[in-house]
């Protein structure tokens, strides 16, 4: 996605610009984000900075109402977790799964729900420390995290984004 402002650099942040009652979405690169933050009103400036820091967290979730409707119209699949006996219908009713095995049994159905809740469906965080390799990965991740927060501190968002990408790649690798 290319930045709406300069039309050159890669946009990393989506910003809601409020003018009176009108709202527009703008995709911005870190550079233009910083420049606009200085020009716009105080509140949006402050949050623009927060959002630039946290571009990684910008939500890409589908409009919530759409998803809810489509889930409701769909007939509930007739599935049961063999380990605990929880049916998918019972889960939909209570919002609580029966056992860790339910995630396997209802994987397909849970996918859109997780996407809606979290905007993503691939874990990127800590892992159980079962192997020596995992332990080594962990210490490299910790190192990268430290470098990333240092980059954010000195407002070097491009460097921070690069480190974040490296961390993501590690998480994906570890997951495969």
């Amino acid at each position, binding site marked *: 996605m290319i930045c709406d402002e300069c039309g050159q650099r890669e946009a990393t942040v989506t910003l*809601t610009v409020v003018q009176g009652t009108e709202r527009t979405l703008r995709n911005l690169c870190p550079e233009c984000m910083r420049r606009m933050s200085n020009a716009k009103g*105080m*509140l949006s400036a*402050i*949050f623009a*900075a*927060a*959002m630039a*820091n*946290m571009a*990684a*967290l*910008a*939500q890409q979730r589908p409009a919530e109402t759409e998803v809810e409707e489509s889930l409701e119209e769909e007939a509930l699949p007739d599935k049961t977790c063999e380990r*605990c006996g929880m049916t998918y219908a019972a889960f939909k009713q209570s*919002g*609580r*799964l*029966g*056992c*860790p095995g339910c*995630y*396997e049994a209802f994987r397909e159905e*849970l996918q859109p*729900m*997780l996407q809606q*809740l*979290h*905007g*993503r*469906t*691939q*874990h*990127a*965080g*800590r*892992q*159980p*420390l*079962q192997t020596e390799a995992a332990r080594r990965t962990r210490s490299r*991740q910790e190192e990268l*995290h430290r470098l*990333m*927060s240092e980059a*954010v501190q000195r407002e070097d968002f491009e460097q921070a984004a690069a480190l*974040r990408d490296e*961390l993501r790649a590690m*998480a994906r690798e*570890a*997951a*495969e």
Partner: protein
Amino acid sequence: MSVSTVLSSRVRLARNYSDLPFDLSERPDLAEDCLSRTAGALATSGADKGFLLHRMADLSEGRRAFLAESRLISGDLARAVQTGAVLLNERDGLSVMIGEEDHLRIQAIRPRMELAEAAGDCFRLEDALSKQVSFAFDPELGYLTACPTNTGTGLRASILVHLPMVSQQGKSGEVSEMAARLGLTIRGVFGKGRLALGDVYMVSNHVTLGRTEEELISAVLAVGRHLTDLEATLRETSRREERLTLENRVYRAWALLRSARTLSSNEFYNLWSSARLGLSLGWIEAEADTLDALLWDTLPQHLVAWRETALDEKKLNEARAECVLNALGKLF
């Protein structure tokens, strides 16, 4: 700003054993298994120093409510009277709740903006436990939890911030909306519904999957820092342009807090917020820690524990006022 507007930080991790059903409330045998595994693992790892095991069944209703009010255990755990338990290190603000919605809720509470440190506390506890036991984990979905809202990192990071000017100027709605776009929630802490008594707000992540723990914590901290900046800017404007109004608010509140013989919780929160604002502006001679501790010490179960007897509304209000006088000193 001289005195932090961030009151406290909290992190909790949800973890489950892969071979047990999530809900143990109807299965005392499995709940006992869950408890002994956890307590055993913590003891074997040597990380159990300062921890005491409390079964909910062994605690009085008042003590359970007190711990829940202090946030050392959750309300859900306090209600799991038959099967719930907690490994508690009260001094360091550490708890491992057992038999909550998830098998384990590892939690650390720290003062001020020590959110990363609180996360470190939780990870150290988790590492100690996971040398002995293994938790339900899926390479794609991360740590598996009873409710899909917690899946992934299982991490909820939150800070409490005091934002009197942000709420006075009605900015909290805008702020919440923007925070939501970052996967964060901002809500009041004291009072029911949409109220934010004392102008105390909690900023926490609701997204848990697809981000690293570090990213989630940084997001909460970033929003906390920027809320603090916004609050500081609004205070500065107000100090410049409405000094008299502001002084009137602060000094009246400060005098009333040290004079009142009875205080309803609503009145207390209003006065507290104004006095805390005065403290941050450097207009009031008091310790921030003393003032902040009153937020918890004046809660009903804390007052009951202090008085060691049940209190009706009237007695609660009297006890609250006396608790405040003891902490801040009498004006009369």
